[in-house]
Each structure stands twice: as C-alpha cells, then as structure tokens.
C-alpha cells in the first residue's frame, strides 16, 4: 500500500480528539475534509480579490472574473470536457441532476417516453426523474441490482427500447462501492440515440474521469466530496445537447436583452448560470483540483482501493457480518456492511463514542436497502488521507461493539 500519511499534515481537522479519542474520519463519501490549500484559497480571495464577476470594469472585479474563469478551465480539463463552455457550475450533484431533469426533460420528454435508471441510484438520481416523468407523462424504469451488488445487464438490450429517451446511472455506488461500466453503457446508448447522464458524485476526485472517453451527454459531481468547499459542484453537458436546451433560471448574466415583456438569452454556460455565482466556491474547487493533481489521481485511486481491500478482508473477522457490494478488486473506496447484533444507528453511535466517524442508515438509497432486505447499513468510506492503522483502530472498536451489543 502506498504511504500517503504525510498528507494528513495538510488537513487541520484530522488532528483532533473526539470523545477523548483521536478522530478517525471514515465518512468521506458523505463529505471529504479540506486541505489547508483550499481553505487558504478562500481566505486569499476574500482578503484580496472579492468582487462580483463579469459585470465590473474595476480591478477587483477583473481579478475575481479571471480567477473564476481560470477555475472553469481547470475543472473542465480535470474531467476531460471538450471545452470550458461545456461546464456549468451548480451547488452540487443534486442541483446538476435537477437542472437536466427540468430543462432537458422539458424539451425532449413526451408522454410514453421512458427514463431508465438503476436500482442502485442515490435519491438525488431517482426523485428528479420521477418528478420529470410526472410532469411530462413519461415513465421510469430501472435496471435491477444483482446479489453481488452489480447491475443485472443480461437484458440490457431488451430494456433499451425505442421509448427510452434517457439512461442514467451512478458511476460509483455510494452504498455498494460498485464501479459501473458506464463507458460500455453510454456507447450502447449513443448508438441508439439515447441521451445519458452519469452521476459521478463518488468518482470525481477519487479516480480518473474523462467524460469524452465515457461518451456521456451529461456528467454531474459535487465539490465537497473532493476536497473543495461546500456549495459548489458541476454539470458537464455535451455542447451539442446544451445548445438545444432552453434556459434554466432567469436573471442576471444569462440574458442578452431584457424588456418589460420578453427577453433573449446567452449560450451555455452563461445561459444556465443566472445570478451571482458562488465565486469563492468555484475558486476553491479550482484549488482542490490543483491539490489533487499534485498527489496524482491514479495514486489516490490506488490507495483508496488498497484501503478498501484491507478493510473488507478484516471485516470478515466479525461474527454475523454481511458485507455489501462486489468483492472484486476494482471498487470505490468504501465498504458497507450489516452486523446481525446491532442496528446501524446503534453501531455508529457506539463508534462515535470512540472517536470513529462512520455513517449508518440508508445512505439515500432506500430502494437498495429494500432490495437487500436490510433496514440500513454501516459504511466506512475512505480518502487518501486515511491509513491502514485507522482501519486497525476501526476493527478494535467494532470488535468491542460486537461484545457490547451481543
């Protein structure tokens, strides 16, 4: 396992005690921690350059605008977009999906059409489509999940009927750790003229992502899960598809000409970014990418995979444990499990009193819990600053929990 423990020094928050024990933060899939470099980028912005972007002709406004657009270039390049104009800034994955489910759907979805998602989607990639279907008279269908936590793709060709107008799928499952074959699926869809949206919330910043290689029409992600500030994320949209979409919010910066009766609109990305954006957030996202790139995204992925393998191997020590998701080597850097003796909430509460931050519950994937007939699961999710020593500590605590609850 490569040793990245020196990077812990970059994260002030990690060096604290929780309930008298050193903090072990294994809730990275919910939100990652932020390195000094990202925090500093915010401070620097507010202490030196803060002003509204795009609209001023004064020095601060120009500096803020330059930093803002530089970050757009960076993010676009980081995910392999063809051009910065294909990158729209949003609050995060959820807003990105809702944008598409509102705007793309309002233009392209007709009664009788089908939106195809999977049984392992996050609520954020289910509810918006259900709402869009209700509005348009379309319906939703899903690809089932197999017992091993992978998609049941045996009947995929039969599922991709002419009625299917959009296929959407999580890149890396936040509840199972499954990495889905998004490239193969998007290739199939492209041939059939089906638009595609990939939920990359657990992928970007954890593994190398190239949207052009994947061949999707939309790709969405959240900054706060990849070392960036809260409140910022992105929507990649293929230029050709974005060009056909009507505006989203109305307001400043997205218009050309406004009269008291009607208005005309700019092209993407401005068309979809009405109002003052989260300027500091965007700059912080750029700083996060700079930071991740100094480590190297492939090393981050490798380290996460190794930690996960080690954790999954050690978890089998626990009596009555059921580990969810695939047991193959290529997984997202998280593992979820269920202990017979303790409900996830009791277990997570116990862990917390020992300084260990786990997550327990449905992880915003209620249908998946139902499918596996469990009320919820406990999840340990890792990032590059986590270590195998921390996993040993987790095991110590989980062993104690088993004794406590049995």
């Amino acid at each position, binding site marked *: 396992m490569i040793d990245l423990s020196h990077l812990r020094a970059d994260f002030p928050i990690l060096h604290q005690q929780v309930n008298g024990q050193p903090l072990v933060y294994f809730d990275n899939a919910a939100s990652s921690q932020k390195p000094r470099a990202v925090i500093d980028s915010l401070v620097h912005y507010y202490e030196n350059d803060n002003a509204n972007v795009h609209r001023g002709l004064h020095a601060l406004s120009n500096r803020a605008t330059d930093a803002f657009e530089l970050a757009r270039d960076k993010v676009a390049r980081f995910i392999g977009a063809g051009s910065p104009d294909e990158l729209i800034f949003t609050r995060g994955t959820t807003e990105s999906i809702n944008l598409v489910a509102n705007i793309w759907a309002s233009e392209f979805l007709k009664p009788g059409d089908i939106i195809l998602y999977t049984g392992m989607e996050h609520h954020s990639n289910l509810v918006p489509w259900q709402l869009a279907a209700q509005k348009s008279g379309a319906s939703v269908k899903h690809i089932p999940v197999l017992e091993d936590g992978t998609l049941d793709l045996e009947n995929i060709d039969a599922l991709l009927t002419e009625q299917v107008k959009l296929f959407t799928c999580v890149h890396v499952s936040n509840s199972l750790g499954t990495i889905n074959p998004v490239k193969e699926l998007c290739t199939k869809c492209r041939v059939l003229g089906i638009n595609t949206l990939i939920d990359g919330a657990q992928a970007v910043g954890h593994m190398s992502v190239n949207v052009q290689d994947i061949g999707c029409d939309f790709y969405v992600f959240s900054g706060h899960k990849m070392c960036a500030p809260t409140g910022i994320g992105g929507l990649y949209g293929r230029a050709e598809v974005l060009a056909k979409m009507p505006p989203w919010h109305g307001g400043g910066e997205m218009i050309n000409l406004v009269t008291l009766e009607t208005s005309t609109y700019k092209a993407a990305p401005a068309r979809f970014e009405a109002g003052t954006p989260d300027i500091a957030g965007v700059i912080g996202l750029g700083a996060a990418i700079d930071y991740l790139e100094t480590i190297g995204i492939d090393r981050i992925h490798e380290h996460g995979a190794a930690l996960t393998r080690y954790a999954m191997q050690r978890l089998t020590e626990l009596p009555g444990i059921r580990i969810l998701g695939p047991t193959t080597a290529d997984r997202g850097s998280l593992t979820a499990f269920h202990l017979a003796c303790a409900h996830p909430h*009791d277990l997570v*509460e116990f862990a917390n*009193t020992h300084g260990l931050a786990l997550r327990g519950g449905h992880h915003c994937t209620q249908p998946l819990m139902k499918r596996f007939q469990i009320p919820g699961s406990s999840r340990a999710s890792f990032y590059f600053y986590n270590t195998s020593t921390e996993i040993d500590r987790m095991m110590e605590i989980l062993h104690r929990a088993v004794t406590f609850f049995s």
Partner: protein
Amino acid sequence: MPLSEDLKELYQKVILDHSRSPRNQGQFSADSCVHIHSDNPSCGDEIDLYIRFNEDGSISDIKFEGQGCAISQASASMMTEKVKGIPRQEVLQLIQDLQHTVLGNGEVRSSGTLGELQLLEGIQKFPQRIKCALLGWRGLERALYSAKLT
C-alpha cells in the same frame, strides 16, 4: 464522565434486553383494535401499534411490531408494558413526562410513575436519538386522540 460511559448508561442491560426480546409483540385483528403506523423514514425506524380500548378510554390491551434501532424498539416495548390498564388521563400524563425526561426540559410530574422508563433519561446526551425514543410514544398519542371516546 466520558461519552462512552454515557453510552453504556444509555444502552443499559434493561434497554438492550427490551430491544433483543421485545415484549407484547404481535397484532390484533383489525376490527378489534386501533392500528397506528409510525415511522421515521430518514432512519428506517418503524413501529406499528395495535391497541384495544376499554369503554372508559383506558387501554385494555396493546401490542406492537417494528424494526429499527435498539432505542426505538426498546422504548416501544417498555411503553407497552407500562400503559396497559391505566386511565386515559394518566397515559397522556405519562407521555408528557416521558417527553420531558427524554428532552430534558419541562417538569416531570413524578418520576416515580415512570419506573423503568426513567432509564431513557440517558438520551439527553444523544439528541439525535430523541426521535427514536419517542417514535412509539408519538404513535400512542395519536391513537389516544383518534380513539372514539364515549
């Protein structure tokens, strides 16, 4: 006292015992009881209460089914043991006392009447579990108000 001690206190033998072997589990036939479903979808806890009322509004019998964390299930189990047979007014008072105990606010009329339930006091240190502890009780309260009174 470190939080891990508080935790031990919270999950005392009694509570773990109730959660592992809940009392009064099961249901009555639909036409002979009031059935109230309570859930907390954000954590998946569920309690189904089945209650038979006497003419005077007191509870003649009560059963429950449910799933969820130890706190929610133990609290419901303890509740079913406590409320059988006592007058409606007193049950309402008990619900209020229990809420005050769990929330650590208001005045408990007489902690003596709570008995074992007093153990749930430990929840105060775990505010995010309060809704677990109260899940069954909120259902009971609704049942009391929905039961036709003569």
